């Protein structure tokens, strides 16, 4: 990931820059998560210095921002492959990257060092907006919109100029919706119900609609690229996925409108459509495995051993296929009916789902894209797993699953005791927080968080070194083969 000499297109080099920043922010995200997890167990830790609200805010903001970076990086990376063109207006794109990165740095420093402000508009404009996930202050919101406009212009103009593949068509249409949705989270209102109504437009319609479709396009691109899957088949699947994801996800939004002051009819609408949301996730899982199996079969019948030209990336794509289904599909379905959600709403159960879903659906495939980027940067023909790749895969997946299970247990305790038994409220809340099994679960979450973090170190180390190592290997093998011939 350090150099990208073999890349022919500026667009792809810019994509690599986005990946680099994403990786750094991913590390920062995990560190902040560890601080927050420690605070659950030892509430005195950094009390009134770096409070839980701050560590948590930076944790989830770094999460969203690294994912957006990696998403933009992926798009810049795939544009030349898909359209056959250099990105139009790439100079502007590069400028936008530096502006965005500078803005992100300022925002994070303000979060960390200033933290909170007085209760007036200036805080909303310059320090933080205080709305979970969308904390970025107003000035940064406007900056983000400007940068995204540049990005969108780059993508759209290149699409119009070059080859218009199905993958790019979905990408261009979906990005428009994704960017537009951000606007619905940018205003202030005194009415907390109206506030949360629109807040969910951004959060839910991102992660359960537009980001999912984005993952569908990335998976399609990756399958063509890594295993040489047939484009017509992949693109047909992609349209089916779009149909199912938007068909269920858009009105599935209703599962957030059960208790925020909105009318009762959202119970039925939310329950019905969000229950259908796991269906496309199963389909995507089947699709990846099916295509892989099929291409592998072709290769074997032709006598060549391996269909993959990038096994680290394929491993993460597979983790995505399964993780998306598990974290979003299964864990999401667990609490999506109002009859269940009335008790689980806003408990550690939600946190369990949030972790498994964000990781399974997004972190995994974005990591796969980084490996594809490294492969291109060093011109490696067939990239294989190193020891570090395997350590990263194992530890990160094991760690996040472990955290998910621990939080699910904590959530169960909380739901049964605080909510079902005691009916909620201040005392009920703390009685549940003090249950021995709840505390034990928080302990396991921290332990598994450390495992995840160690896995991340392997991941970063691997991404930084695998390119140089394997390209040198291929070169010496090539030289040996030439000498033998």
């Amino acid at each position: 990931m350090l150099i990208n000499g073999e890349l022919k297109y500026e667009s792809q080099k810019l994509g690599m820059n986005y990946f680099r920043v994403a990786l750094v922010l991913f590390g920062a995200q995990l560190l902040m998560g560890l601080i927050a997890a420690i605070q659950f167990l030892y509430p005195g830790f950094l009390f009134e210095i770096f409070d839980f609200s701050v560590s948590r805010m930076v944790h989830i903001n770094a999460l969203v921002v690294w994912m957006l970076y990696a998403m933009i990086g992926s798009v810049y990376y795939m544009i030349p492959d898909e359209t056959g063109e250099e990105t139009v207006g790439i100079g502007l794109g590069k400028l936008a990257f530096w502006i965005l990165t500078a803005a992100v740095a300022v925002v994070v420093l303000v979060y960390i060092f200033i933290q909170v402000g007085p209760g007036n508009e200036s805080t909303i404009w310059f320090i933080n907006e205080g709305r979970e996930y969308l904390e970025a202050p107003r000035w940064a919101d406007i900056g983000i919109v400007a940068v995204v406009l540049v990005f969108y212009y780059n993508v759209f103009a290149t699409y119009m100029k070059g080859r218009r593949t199905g993958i790019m068509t979905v990408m261009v249409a979906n990005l428009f919706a994704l960017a537009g949705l951000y606007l619905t989270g940018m205003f202030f209102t005194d009415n907390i119900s109206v506030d949360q109504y629109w807040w969910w437009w951004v959060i839910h319609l991102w992660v359960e609609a537009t980001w999912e479709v984005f993952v569908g396009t990335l998976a399609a691109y990756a399958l063509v690229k890594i295993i040489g899957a047939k484009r017509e088949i992949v693109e047909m699947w992609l349209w089916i996925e779009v149909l199912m994801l938007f068909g269920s996800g858009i009105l599935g939004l209703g599962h957030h409108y059960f208790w925020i002051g909105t009318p009762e009819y959202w119970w039925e609408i939310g329950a019905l459509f969000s229950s259908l949301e796991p269906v496309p996730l199963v389909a995507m899982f089947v699709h990846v495995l099916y295509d892989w199996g099929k291409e592998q079969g072709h290769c074997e019948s032709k006598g060549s051993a391996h269909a993959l030209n990038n096994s680290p990336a394929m491993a993460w794509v597979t983790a995505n296929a399964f993780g998306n289904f598990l974290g979003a599909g299964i864990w999401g379905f667990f609490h999506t009916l109002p009859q269940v959600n009335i008790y689980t709403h806003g408990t550690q159960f939600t946190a369990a789902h949030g972790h498994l879903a964000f990781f399974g659906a997004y972190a995994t495939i974005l990591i796969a894209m980084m490996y594809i980027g490294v492969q291109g940067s060093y011109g490696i023909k067939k990239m294989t797993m190193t020891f570090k790749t395997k350590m990263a895969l194992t530890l990160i997946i094991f760690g996040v699953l472990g955290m998910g299970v621990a939080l699910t247990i904590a959530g169960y305790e909380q739901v049964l005791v605080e909510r079902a038994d005691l009916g909620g409220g201040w005392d009920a809340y703390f009685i549940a927080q003090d249950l021995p099994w709840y505390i034990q679960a928080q302990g396991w979450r921290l332990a598994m968080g450390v495992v995840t973090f160690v896995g991340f170190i392997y991941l970063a180390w691997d991404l930084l070194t695998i390119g140089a190592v394997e390209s040198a290997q291929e070169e010496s093998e090539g030289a040996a083969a030439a000498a033998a011939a």
Partner: protein
Amino acid sequence: MSKKSASVWTSIRFWRRSAAWVTGTATVLLIWLTFDTMGQISMGSDADLAKGIKHRIPAATVINYHVDYQFDQKRGHEVPVIGEKEKFFGKEWSAKDAAALLHHGKLTSQAKNCMNCHTLLGNGGYYAPDLTKAWLDAKWNDGTMTGITGKNTKEEAMAEFLMHPSQYPTHARMMPDLGITQDEAVALVAFLKHMSAIDTNGFPRNFSQSAKRLEGGTHAH
């Protein structure tokens, strides 16, 4: 087209058009429902409050009334019940002042980042108790918090707590001092009282029973 698809099920064109139609239909439905919901969740007026006309989200002047949370037979869950007039910080607030106070309170809740430890309407962080019905919590009504803050009314006790939370700990996990001023604290209490009057379709469930269920300890150990 030279390569005609064998069946419609393997035709990209068919799936592309279906995807567009389904997405379009879902979007139109969502927008339509949004208009309806916006109508139902816009804030009621002061006049309606005085006449006892219910709104899912009442006017800011609901701070001038007693708020309760009671089981409703017909709906099968608890709902907020707006009762008699009561003083809030020792006075009745005009519609204009109450709206300004709520505005200040909502802004302060964001500026102080309450939502990254607490949940509001169930959304936010899970490090501290849900604030949806905090105004109605037994803690403020049974003398506990008025006792330790040395205040006479619960609004004053809440404001005092918000200004110096770590001086009145109830648990090892304390709320940090966020530099909340007296004015901000009063505004926050108004924001919390207003939120407790929102019709949340019965969330949190059995909240009104909480104090009773806690009596004589709990089996939860």
